[in-house]
């Protein structure tokens, strides 16, 4: 058998090392990335509702100016509609939170995800095994989650890994608006994960229903009786946003 080692080694060499440095507060995504919206309510004109009317997911409210990241699909329409620059987009990827309320932006300081309580962290040790359940996800979120495991983002180096069975998992990651046809399968999967377990809602769909909010065929995201430990907003969230959130939850960042 002919072994093409020279070609393989040359390619290996030229492909190079591509893994990004450990995520930190200093991590930066390119300028074009539509990350955290920046609100400056003091710039709002009286009786202006341009941003609210432009939003496809009813994520923006005026007087006072509020933006619900849990509904936002980063479509930039609100920023484009704003006549005064009261609402702009930044490339800040740190968007995940541990409380649903913290996703509601009001122009004050960002409220980032908090570490979970130390007893659970100790039980998990240095690994976190997750089962992914797509419940109506369009494959955007699923694709970015898979990307978080590739050679570039390499979440495996932090002990974070997707596993094939809920029995092997410490928690589940839910994507999609939870289609009615998937609700039972989602609940069954959750029940199959041994406690203590965590639940991560990824994407506008899983947090609020996203653009499908209000559809009778969907449940507007993770049903209210399931306890969400981490909200990772975006449509879909960037792999770095997901990593940032999970590492904060594990108290492994900074």
């Amino acid at each position, binding site marked *: *058998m002919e072994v*093409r080692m020279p*070609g393989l080694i040359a*390619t*290996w060499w030229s*492909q190079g090392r*591509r893994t990004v440095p450990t995520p930190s507060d200093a991590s930066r995504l*390119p300028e*074009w*990335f*539509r990350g955290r919206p920046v609100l400056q309510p003091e710039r709002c004109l009286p009786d202006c509702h341009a941003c609210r009317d432009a939003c*496809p997911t009813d994520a923006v409210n005026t007087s006072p100016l509020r933006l619900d990241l849990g509904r936002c*699909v*980063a*479509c*930039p*329409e609100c920023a*484009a509609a704003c006549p005064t620059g009261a609402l702009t987009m930044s490339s800040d990827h740190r968007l995940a939170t541990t409380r649903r309320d913290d996703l509601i932006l009001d122009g004050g300081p960002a409220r980032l995800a908090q570490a979970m309580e130390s007893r659970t962290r100790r039980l998990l040790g240095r690994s976190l095994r997750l*089962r*992914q*359940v*797509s*419940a*109506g*996800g*369009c*494959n*955007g*979120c*699923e*694709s970015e*989650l*898979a*990307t978080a*495991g*590739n*050679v*570039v983002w390499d979440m495996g180096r932090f002990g974070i890994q*997707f596993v*094939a*069975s809920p029995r092997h998992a410490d928690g589940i990651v839910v994507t*999609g*608006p939870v*289609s*009615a*046809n*998937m*609700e*039972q*399968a989602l609940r069954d*999967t959750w029940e199959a994960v041994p406690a203590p377990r965590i639940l991560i809602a990824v994407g506008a769909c899983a947090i609020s229903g*996203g*653009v*499908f909010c*209000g*559809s009778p*065929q*969907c449940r507007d995201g993770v049903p209210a009786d399931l306890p969400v430990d981490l909200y990772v907003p975006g*449509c879909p969230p*960037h792999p770095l946003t997901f990593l940032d959130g999970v590492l904060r939850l594990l108290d492994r960042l900074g």
Partner: protein
Amino acid sequence: MTLGPPKSFRNGQAVPGAAIPTVAPRAFRDLVIAACASGARVCALYALPSGGEVTLHVLLAHDDVGRLSMLATRTRAGGSFPSMASALPSTQAMERAVFEDHGVLPEGHPWLKPLRRHPALQAGSGTEPGGPQGPADARRPEHPFFRVEGAGVHEVAVGPVHAGVIEPGHFRFQCSGETVHTLEIHLGYQHRGALARLVAARPAHRTAIAESLVGDGAISHGLAYGVVAEALGGVAVPERALALRQVALELERISDHVGDFGALCNDVGYLPAASWCPRLRGDIQNALGLLTGHRFGRGFLVPGGLIAPVGDDVLAELARVLATFGREFTQVVSLALDAPSVLSRFEGTGVVSQAVARDLGLLGVAARASGCDLDARRDHPLPGCRPLPSAPSVQATGDVLARARVRVAETTRSLERIQAQLAAMPDGPVRAPVGPWAGDAVAVGLVEGSRGQVTHVGITDANGGLAAYHVFDPSLLNWPGLAMALRGQQISDFPLCNKSFDLSYAGHDL
């Protein structure tokens, strides 16, 4: 705007609903079957209820002359029409959708199972899609899973929740030992009621929904919606926007093909390419991000053009990134497709013959890998755009290797196309205002996405409001192709075959 009454029309044209020839149900079936016998293809079949009546529309593509035609028939609400699914298997899923959405029975349908609606699942009575399902309709036969019986035959059930990070669906295999006799693919878990949301949404918000139908098809579906809206609103999209849209569409194709090539290598354990390809795909997603502000290209398209202008500096940077990508991708592919361990697993696996591909109406990569020479970019170019200058990449063998080769060839072709377009980018505005929509009209948008032809049909009411919207993702037609590819294969080759088709669940379930 007013519309003439064409007998046949082009992609991106609106026609008055009244101009669609209406015939009796039996003639409807016979005419469609006859048209397909002489080379036409069914792109869409849907029902429009109004009052006590239901109108059925069929959309046919005549690829050889680059034209489309429509035919209509009527029946009473709760009535029936003669099924054409036995003669034209490509219509089987569309007829099932008509039945479950509108209660009009396709008489003589060979396999009238629920497609997307599963009340048993919703009632929480299990995650198994067996048992009585669908809207209560005494006319629906009960359909348990297809079973093979005999000594040593066993059944393997997989899903809806899968082992990987992918969408849900249920697969039922009938096997003897390792050999698969039949595979039944049962979907619908992803049904989000997306089209009803799209119709109900305010016009300015519809693109965002179209872009969410299929995550890695945001550009093709967003564009197909744009074409429909532009046809109804009678707008000529500025040239620069037309060119930039095509660049985005080809970037999406490259991204999907490269990701898929890496997944194929992963499934046969060729790890170098399995690790390099996702990184290469990431470079393309970032290139798409540079162009559109989003790694899947959302928030870029708008009916009439683009949301915002794109500077020439961005285009220069794009050209540079793509040149590097082209070199690196070629290296990886030539290594992978030269490795005996890869070739021996790809070759002869999951074969779909040309005859089967044609019968099922397969589209895109799946069709071209089985020798079907079709590509909407050549046959039904976007309005205002030149057709693809050369024949699409076609392979004869219909196996995993053929599908991999088509993806590689199309990646190279798309790179060349983008570079040519970047080098000759027209100047000028990127957005034109869209007028009020034509009333009582039907408009069609066809876009060759990475999985094949995406078909959108918009129907307006008398005031030019959107009355109904229908989407036919290529996955709807291609899933049965995967089922056929598995016949006689080892069950352990399922992941490989599945990846080689790379179909969308959400696009099927909508």
